[in-house]
């Protein structure tokens, strides 16, 4: 079994409102899976279905090949977007309580908590009350509690919100480390640069429907428009007009040293980059030649707007 999680045509209605409409996703074992979508698309509902917080109307979910059961709670670690801690409890006893709710033994939980607290450099927080901590500090505790019981599947909903760049990096490194140790990660965020950085596969949910999914690189290939960004200092002044008449051209923005002509040139299917390069080299001094790769953000915006 190569997929840790399979969601098969899950639908969920709240009264007249459809939160999920026949959504299926598969999450390969040991990967980081990006669950994307605009606000209110149904991501949180899908995550809650996976966590057995919400029961789907139709469809089913397989975790490691088995239909979801009560005992799977301990195989999943979930960091919700709306998260908090008991304000009046101490950090240590609270973390122990939450770990025990996930089915861990107290002594084992204590040992691992100490280790994680060292790892995140928060060892001296054990006896602090949550209300004495800043938001970012509390987020660290929540992260530790989420991963402590070493679940097979980790679900992070906006994990970096509330972190400064240093701590965001610290958390990112820990997520990658957990992935390397064999965990599978589902990652829901609006920050496309972290999708770019972390995700192997993505699914895009829009208005309760899944509109796109697959390997991120494959999707990018699918979305690339055969467009090249060029910088050239032309031999004659008419080059821009010449290019405009031959190709579909738009102005480009990038940093360069000289006062070059900067353009995006979109090639048709039967033209190759080599042809363009050869043509351009006869017309002037090329300083810049790059294929335009669609960013996750571009793909997101384009897909959502087209639907």
């Amino acid at each position: 079994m190569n997929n840790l999680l399979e969601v098969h045509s899950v639908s969920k209605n709240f009264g007249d409102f459809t939160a999920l409409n026949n959504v299926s996703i598969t999450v390969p074992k040991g990967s980081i899976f990006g669950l994307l979508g605009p606000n209110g698309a149904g991501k949180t509902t899908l995550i809650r279905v996976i966590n057995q917080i919400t029961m789907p109307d139709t469809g089913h979910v397989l975790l490691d090949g088995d239909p979801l059961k009560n005992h799977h709670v301990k195989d999943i670690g979930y960091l919700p977007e709306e998260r908090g801690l008991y304000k009046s409890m101490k950090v240590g006893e609270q973390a122990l309580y939450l770990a025990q709710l996930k089915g861990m033994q107290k002594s084992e939980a204590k040992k691992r908590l100490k280790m994680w607290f060292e790892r995140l450099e928060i060892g001296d927080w054990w006896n602090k009350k949550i209300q004495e901590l800043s938001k970012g500090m509390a987020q660290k505790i929540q992260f530790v509690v989420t991963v402590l019981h070493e679940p097979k599947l980790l679900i992070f909903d906006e994990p970096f919100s509330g972190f400064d760049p240093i701590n965001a990096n610290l958390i990112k490194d820990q997520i990658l480390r957990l992935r390397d140790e064999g965990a599978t990660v589902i990652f829901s965020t609006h920050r496309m640069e972290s999708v770019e950085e972390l995700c192997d596969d993505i699914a895009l949910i829009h208005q309760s429907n899944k509109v796109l999914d697959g390997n991120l690189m494959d999707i990018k290939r699918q979305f690339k428009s055969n467009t090249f960004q060029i910088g050239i200092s032309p031999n004659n002044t008419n080059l821009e007009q010449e290019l405009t008449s031959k190709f579909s051209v738009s102005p480009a923005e990038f940093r360069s040293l000289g006062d070059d002509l900067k353009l995006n040139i979109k090639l048709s299917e039967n033209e190759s980059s080599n042809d363009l390069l050869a043509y351009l080299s006869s017309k002037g001094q090329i300083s810049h030649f790059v294929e335009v790769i669609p960013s996750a953000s571009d793909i997101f915006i384009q897909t959502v707007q087209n639907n």
Partner: protein
Amino acid sequence: MNHLPLIIKREYLTKVKNKAFIIMTFLSPLIIIGLISVVAYLAQMNNNKERQISVLDQSGLFQDIFKDTQNTKYTILENNVSLENAKTLVEEKGNYGLLHIKKMDSLNEAKSSFSFYSEDSPSISVISNLDNIIEKELTNINMNRLGVNPEIIKTSKITVDIVQESFAGEKTSEIDSGIKIAFGVAAGYMLFMFIIIYGNMIMRSVIEEKTSRIIEVIISSVKPVQLMLGKIIGTSLVGITQVVIWIILGSVLIVVVSLVFGIDLSQINSPQQEVLQQAMQSSGNGMDKIQEVVNAFFNLPLANLIIAFILFFISGYLLYSSLYAAIGAAVDNETDTQQFMMPIILPLILAVYVGGFTVIEDPHGTVSTVFSFIPFTSPVVMLMRIPFGVPIWQQLLSLTILIGTFMFTVWFAAKIYRVGILMYGKKPSYKEIMKWIKY
């Protein structure tokens, strides 16, 4: 996985360790006992004041019936002093007051022949005491005049205490009824207070989980029903702890206060009670009364009472507290709870009223019986009825209905809870909450 013990433990420990809780638990008996002691002390001071009363008897009918008591001293004025002189005299001496008895031609004028003059309006107990003395004497005089020997009347007087016996052979007396009323009312009120105080505590603890946003983390590991039950049970244990501490602390304090400060807390008498006591003094001997009360207590169906108390108390409490938990789940903050509280408080108040008036008047009447079966009023009303002897089948039937309803409300509350705890930001209407049931 059963997390119930873990949830109960956390709920209990965090509440018990809470500073406000500790202060409340230990301070409130101190405050209450302190207040009572002050009141008792003041009442005692008031009672100990010696009162000088002068009597101007122009009728010549009353010679030596005004006998000095501990707190009241009488001065009999010469009957040739005029009323005006007597008033000035009494005022100058700083006496409490002056009792003036007019000259009477016949006893028919007695009604309007007595006046009492004083600086301020006199204490009600002083006046009623004088009333008593005078009426008794006048009655004696009248009897003598009509040729009746008061001694004969006294010796011929017979008191009865009707022994009430049910057809099944259970005996009761009037004192029994008093004890039963006391027992029933105490049980009913206790349940009422317990529901209000600790039901609110449950509600707040649910709201706290919502406002601190920890709820989603928790219910990704625990079923909402389990969480809800854990909260209800944990909070109830907190309540039991608090009440037990209050009872122990209260009793110790009462003993300490009466020993150390010599204040007899039973001395807090209202004027009405004083009047009553004086009226009762004639009949019966104190020890007999106590003996009768003790007997009456043991005449109660104690085993039945205790078992019924425990069962009705627990089921009634759980019924209401599950509703409190549902309210907590439906709203975001405490101010929004008002509109949902009314439907809970109303049947409770109704139950206490029905219990306090109808049951005492007629414990097995139609109204009492009906209300002791309606699940939302039955815990209170039935607890008040049971001391008067309710057939076991009625108790069982009422309990069955109550438990059935309780299971329904827990199911119902769990549905609201499950959806409500994940709803933020808006105040739901009843209509929306009904929709949640179907989610």
